[in-house]
């Protein structure tokens, strides 16, 4: 009897951080395949080859729980309501993928992130993207420059942040359409992380970049639970060994390395202007966005409880990672 094949099907294009052989899932797959002594084989199917649902980010978890795919790249915010606490990370609260992801994982381990205790999937890992920063067509140097600008925004938190900064959020343009919409002048810019700036070709349409963290989105790698349960103890042990916290640490670090490389590439590009706000100007941006954080905390008691646990966990993670 040959090895059991686990199909990792995703809408992400081939060759990216989450699909290529030396990327996050490629490394995880290699480790698991070796540790299982060849009992499992992981097949990576990028590019949304599984029909309309395969291309629909909101359907990815269902593909896994229904057994259509074995492993999926899930963006929890695309199934709103199912993971109601993830919107915390949509606020400007994390400085890197390593920090955000480890904090996210530890909060999950404390049982504070609702929806992740679902027994129909096995969690390979949880991630928080590196923070979104602002990319615009024209120059933006101070908060007043944002007035009258239309910024593509996905998710309620991002829209509120944009509104708090005095710009107009445009939610009817999707991330996929953002580059087109900016180059055609439908919108003037969008907050995205440095990797997404290039992978969604937004770099082709923007030349000005403000290095200000404006929230992030979360990611989950999920494995069909029944499939996991059907594997041999040795294969399960191999998966356990490289999933959870080890995965989160490996993926967070790699995510930041890729992001830093793209950031540097963008800074070195003579045609682009990447600015870091001077401290007093930065304080004005943070103050404006701080009102959104306050609103979020006051919205209900669950949010405030999560916030308290979050700040404690984040401080601990930051200490461990040697951050400020």
């Amino acid at each position, binding site marked *: 009897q040959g090895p059991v094949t686990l199909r990792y099907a995703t809408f992400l294009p081939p060759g990216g951080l989450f699909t290529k052989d030396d990327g996050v899932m490629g490394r995880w797959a290699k480790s698991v395949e070796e540790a299982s002594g060849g009992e499992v084989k992981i097949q990576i199917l990028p590019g949304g080859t599984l029909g*309309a649902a395969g291309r*629909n980010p909101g359907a990815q978890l269902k593909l896994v729980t229904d*057994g*259509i795919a074995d492993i999926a790249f899930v963006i929890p915010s695309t199934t709103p309501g199912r993971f109601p606490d993830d919107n915390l990370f949509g606020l400007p609260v994390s400085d890197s993928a390593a920090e955000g992801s480890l904090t996210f994982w530890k909060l999950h381990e404390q049982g504070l992130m609702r929806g992740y205790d679902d027994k129909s999937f096995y969690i390979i890992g949880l991630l928080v993207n590196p923070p979104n920063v602002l990319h615009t067509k024209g120059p933006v140097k101070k908060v007043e420059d944002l007035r009258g600008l239309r910024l593509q925004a996905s998710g309620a938190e991002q829209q509120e942040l944009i509104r708090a900064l005095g710009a107009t959020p445009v939610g009817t343009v999707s991330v996929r*359409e953002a580059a087109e919409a900016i180059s*055609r002048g439908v919108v003037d810019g969008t907050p995205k992380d440095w990797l997404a700036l290039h992978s969604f070709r937004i770099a082709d349409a923007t030349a000005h970049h403000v290095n200000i963290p404006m929230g992030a989105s979360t990611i989950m790698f999920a494995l069909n639970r029944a499939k996991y349960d059907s594997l041999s103890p040795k294969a399960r042990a191999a998966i356990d060994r490289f999933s959870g916290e080890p995965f989160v640490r490996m993926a967070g670090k790699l995510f930041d390395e890729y992001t830093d490389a793209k950031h540097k590439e963008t800074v070195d590009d003579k045609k682009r202007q990447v600015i870091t706000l001077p401290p007093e100007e930065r304080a004005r941006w943070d103050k404006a966005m701080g009102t959104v954080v306050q609103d979020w905390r006051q919205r209900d008691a669950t949010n405030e409880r999560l916030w308290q646990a979050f700040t404690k966990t984040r401080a601990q993670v930051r200490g461990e990672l040697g951050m400020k």
Partner: protein
Amino acid sequence: MSSTTIILFGFVGLFALILLQVPIGVAMMVSGAAGFAAIVGVQPALSMFGGEVASSFASADLALIPIFLLMGNFASAAGLSTDLYRLADAFVGHRRGGLALATLGGCAGFGALCGSSLATVGTMHRVAYPEMLARGYPPHFAAGTIAVGGTLGILVPPSIILVVYSVLAETFVIDLYIAALLPALMAVAFYGAAVVLYGMTRRAAMPAGPRLSGAERLEAVRQSLFVIALAGLVIGGIYAGVFTALEAASVGAVLSFAAYLWRRGWRRAEAFKLIGDTASVTGMIYVMVIGASAFNYFVTVSGVADLFMAAVNATHLPPWGVIALILVVYIVLGAFFDEVATMLITLPFVLPLIVSWGYDPLWWGIVNVTVIMIGLFCPPIGLNVMVMHGLVRDVPLRRMYLGVLPFLLADFLRLGLLVAFPLIATWLPAALR
């Protein structure tokens, strides 16, 4: 069962169902799900349906289709095609074959408001056919010109078939529209050239109309200001960057409806029929797309694409040779099968091959639409010619195919150029990016 056996069963089953008169979309659903079940399992194959339908219904790209259909149907009922036809006639009507040229121009213009070729034939037939007969054009040539001009409806943006392609091939619909622009201009020029050349050999059959004065031309422009503004707003809005594709479609639909109310007033029965038509065509397209997606699952997990690619590479044919072969197969199959079905069934394994040779999926989309256009009027079964025959019963089908012959040559030449020079389709999207 080995995967080759499953693949064989899947494809044989698909064709058997289609020949047993099962709708193509349903046949693809059934054979795709059965093949997927054989490889992955019955339960996943069942729940695949729920996920596919849910994702297709929720797709903002597919939602473009009913909006474009509403826009085209209201534009047609409002008689906007008449304005375009008169306008084109005012400028080219005095030439030999002028009215045929005006018909082609009217078709191209109406194509900017309507995403369907059949609807373009239907609406242009009402305006152009009686006039061409009155001016002494041979009926089969007049009918042929309209049948051919109608195909511009699916090449000039917006186009339903380009939306379907963009969804299944994962390309931006706006990029596809931009890619279609030069080939569309080329199509109009080539059809026009065919008319002029044909007119040189049959001088008596292609009378010239009277030359209009500047004032009369100005009047024709004034008459069609609304339709020019509408087409300009929709197409210009997309190209120059005020709206997304969906916003452009919405603007077009709202203004077409306004034009319909203004010109014809509210006629309940007629509006109800327009809506019923829009709905059934929309439902039909969703079923087709869901079927193509379900079949895609089977193609993906069975590894057909890899097998196909290996088989093609084993022949050591140059890429252009393989592409020429594929196109010949498409056109031949189109004679007794259906070009769109052929394209949808083969897309999941042909497109990866094309892309692996470094060709742009946008270009392949335009090539596919060109093949479909040819299939719409190429004997022995050309849908547009059949529809035109249904509308003008007095011209025998055989004569009608004779009438499209000059255009057929023009289209084969255009297809050859498009294959030889992919830049015709890919240059503009790259330049505007």
